[in-house]
């Protein structure tokens, strides 16, 4: 995370959102380790960062089979549902979806899944479809 913090400083990224990035990435990596790689020490998690015109884009790669992102548009209802569970887990993706401007599960040319997370620069939210 120190490297990412340093890279964000160099990328003209608003400092007010740095903690959002670090939290979202931390949660994404934890999910990748625990669920994607199933806590297998021989499997790796790779994080890449791309500095685009309007956004910083992170990709978190694991060696798992991918997953379906839970719906976030009904955030309030989903949150109430989780509070009612006997062991309310899975807040990681929920936080990532709220902290980031866009989150997608993608697949690369080799068929490996990764989580793509977008953060707009200059305090502006971005559409992942925009360049």
């Amino acid at each position: 995370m120190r490297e990412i913090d340093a890279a964000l400083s160099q990328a003209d990224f608003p400092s007010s959102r740095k903690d959002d990035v670090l939290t979202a990435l931390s949660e994404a990596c934890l999910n990748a380790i625990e669920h994607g790689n199933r806590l297998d020490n021989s499997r790796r998690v790779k994080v890449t960062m791309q500095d685009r015109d309007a956004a910083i884009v992170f990709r978190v790669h694991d060696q798992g089979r991918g997953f379906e992102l839970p719906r976030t548009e009904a955030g309030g209802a989903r949150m109430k549902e989780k509070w009612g569970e006997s062991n309310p887990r899975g807040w990681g993706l929920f936080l990532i979806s709220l902290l980031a401007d866009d989150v997608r599960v993608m697949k690369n040319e080799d068929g490996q899944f990764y989580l793509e997370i977008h953060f707009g620069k200059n305090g502006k939210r971005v559409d992942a479809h925009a360049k």
Partner: protein
Amino acid sequence: MRMQNNGFEVQYRGFERGIIIDLQGDLTKQAEEILLHSRNWENGLDDGKNHLILNFSRVPYINSSGIATLIRIVRAGTKGNYHTFAYGLSSHYEKLFRMVGLTEYMMIYPDEYAVMQRIAG
């Protein structure tokens, strides 16, 4: 009383109307053992006390597992008949707590004095 696990530790301090838990270290899955399994929160606090104060001033990092643990403690307050307060949180974690709904059940104050004033009032 003090308990420790993997760098995370807690100390309990009693006061007339409740208990204060001084948390120290990263609040992650490892903290669950100490916080959740050391007592049955639904049975309430000791001696009929009904104010639980969580001191986060020495907690540098909280992840989603730590948040899940806090949710279970706070939620148990309904059955255990206690109210939960917190202080020492950074603005970032206060924001995360708001996002997951914790602030509906946990009142956040800047410091211990402010919490005590609220309870005494």
